[in-house]
């Protein structure tokens, strides 16, 4: 018998728990040649802002041991161009699209939430309160429980769609952050966003990234992500989307055991463009082989 791969998160029913992560999958269309979007659970757009954003100068990308740093600087087309040019594609795909977004004040966040709320092609919102790349950006919201509460509460008032808050790992106490978001009305939490890192070109005596520091992602960060998902899952009563270094089905299932209801695949898509689809397939194969009837039965099933 085929195992039941469906999960429910924040009121959405997904065919399987595998999503693609914001910023690593464009607006859905870029990878369409390589991935059957209807074989994954959902996909998340590049982070959106009210106005279009240029992002940082280059180099924006550097490989590090087992991972990479990016300092894209939240380049995006802005909400208007998104609606005009990207949303029509979403209509053609029978898979929930989640809009990731960010702002510079609670008001901006709220305004974006309101605009996204009115787009029927968007299944849910993911608030990025944690981008470490932009100097004036999200950093302050994502590292202080009070600020996080305010911004999430503002978004909550502006949308009735499922509201997912994406947490920053660059904090002393991720559970306190998670709790603040829960208190402010989040429907689900996704974690982790990138850690802040740096790389240096010895010969040129310069930082490699034009922006000096960047967001650290990839397999290297998995142990930190897994730990944070486990900590938050035990402490906060919200569904969790686990993110961080997921490269294969084993990684994904580990996050689910740690307490995640679903997962997002980021950097892995760069290495294998069909990573998300393959992971969903391999998870199902693992469940079949191990006689597990449903992926839901594995959520938080870690025995400590």
């Amino acid at each position: 018998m085929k195992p039941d791969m469906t999960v429910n998160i924040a009121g959405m029913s997904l065919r399987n728990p595998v999503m693609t992560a914001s910023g690593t999958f464009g607006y859905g269309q870029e990878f369409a040649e390589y991935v059957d979007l209807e074989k994954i659970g959902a996909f998340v757009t590049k982070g959106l802002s009210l106005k279009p954003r240029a992002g940082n100068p280059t180099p924006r990308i550097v490989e590090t041991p087992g991972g990479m740093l990016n300092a894209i600087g939240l380049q995006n087309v802005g909400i208007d161009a998104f609606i005009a040019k990207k949303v029509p594609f979403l209509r053609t795909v029978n898979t929930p699209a989640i809009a990731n977004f960010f702002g510079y004040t609670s008001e901006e966040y709220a305004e974006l939430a309101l605009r996204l709320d009115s787009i029927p092609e968007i299944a849910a919102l993911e608030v990025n309160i944690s981008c470490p790349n932009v100097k004036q950006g999200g950093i302050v919201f994502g590292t202080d429980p009070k600020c996080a509460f305010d911004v999430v509460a503002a978004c909550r008032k502006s949308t009735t769609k499922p509201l997912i808050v994406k947490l920053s790992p660059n904090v002393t106490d991720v559970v306190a952050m998670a709790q603040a978001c829960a208190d402010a009305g989040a429907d689900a939490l996704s974690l982790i966003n990138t850690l802040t890192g740096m790389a240096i070109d010895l010969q040129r005596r310069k930082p490699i990234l034009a922006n000096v520091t960047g967001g650290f992602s990839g397999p290297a960060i998995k142990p930190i992500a897994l730990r944070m998902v486990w900590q938050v899952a035990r402490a906060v009563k919200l569904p969790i989307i686990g993110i961080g270094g997921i490269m294969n089905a084993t990684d994904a299932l580990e996050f689910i055991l740690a307490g995640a209801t679903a997962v997002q695949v980021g950097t892995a898509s760069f290495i294998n463009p069909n990573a998300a689809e393959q992971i969903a397939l391999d998870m199902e194969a693992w469940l079949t082989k191990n006689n597990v009837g449903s992926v839901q039965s594995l959520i938080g099933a870690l025995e400590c």
Partner: protein
Amino acid sequence: MQFKAMILSNAEVSPGYWRMRLTAPQEFAAAKPGQFVMVRVSGTIDPLLRRPFGIFDVAVHVPAQAGAVEQPCFDILYRVVGKGTAMLSALHATDLVDILGPLGRGFELGSPTEEKLIVGGGVGLAPLYLLAKELVKQSPVRLFAGGRTRDDILCITEFERLGVECYVATEDGSLGECGLVTEALVRRLDLVQGQASIFACGPHGMLNAVAGIAEKRSIPCQVSLEGYMACGVGACLGCVTPGSNHSTETPDFRCVCAEGPVFDANELGWGC
């Protein structure tokens, strides 16, 4: 397209420069000059990201076994600069590597009447051979190959075999003229009085100079750029380059991987 390619050969063609031939599926035969591939150097996480390389040549591989069917194959020409390329150079015939490609926008061949001037700096020659192969079918083609020293002058015989006239310049004078290859280019342009178009690939400084030369003479000029890449398909926005209208207020970044790597020189913001 994503596929597992078998290495057919991998040999050093000049100190530090290697040429690798790999098998490819049928559809790969349609690869355009200027397109590139993303190579997964190993199956492990070290190195993690794919490495981009221009397509040097596309050919047909005839296996030695009796009865075996012909199969497309392609070549990359690469310089060993770091970990990934060092590991590539240690691979052997019959090893498998994972390939994504052909990717990106290649060269436009342009009108057959103009003379075609190809300018390559060092390993920047890589995507220009397949281009020359196409161009010689319809136009006279000249190659201007530059490098720091003679070891950086690659595959000239291959171009000559196509009937391309080759000019060589090295900064240290160890092969060809002493100086920059743009000097010979300017001389040729003066001679043909601008009845030509330019195709260039190489270090950013050289491309900038070539673009300037072309602009002054209002000559069509296409350049192939590099950029640090993660995805190769326009999804990560890592590889961007400023377009001609770029400013912080009116962002105009182009993806080198998806909108390039070949650009019309006047599409780009050279000052940024």
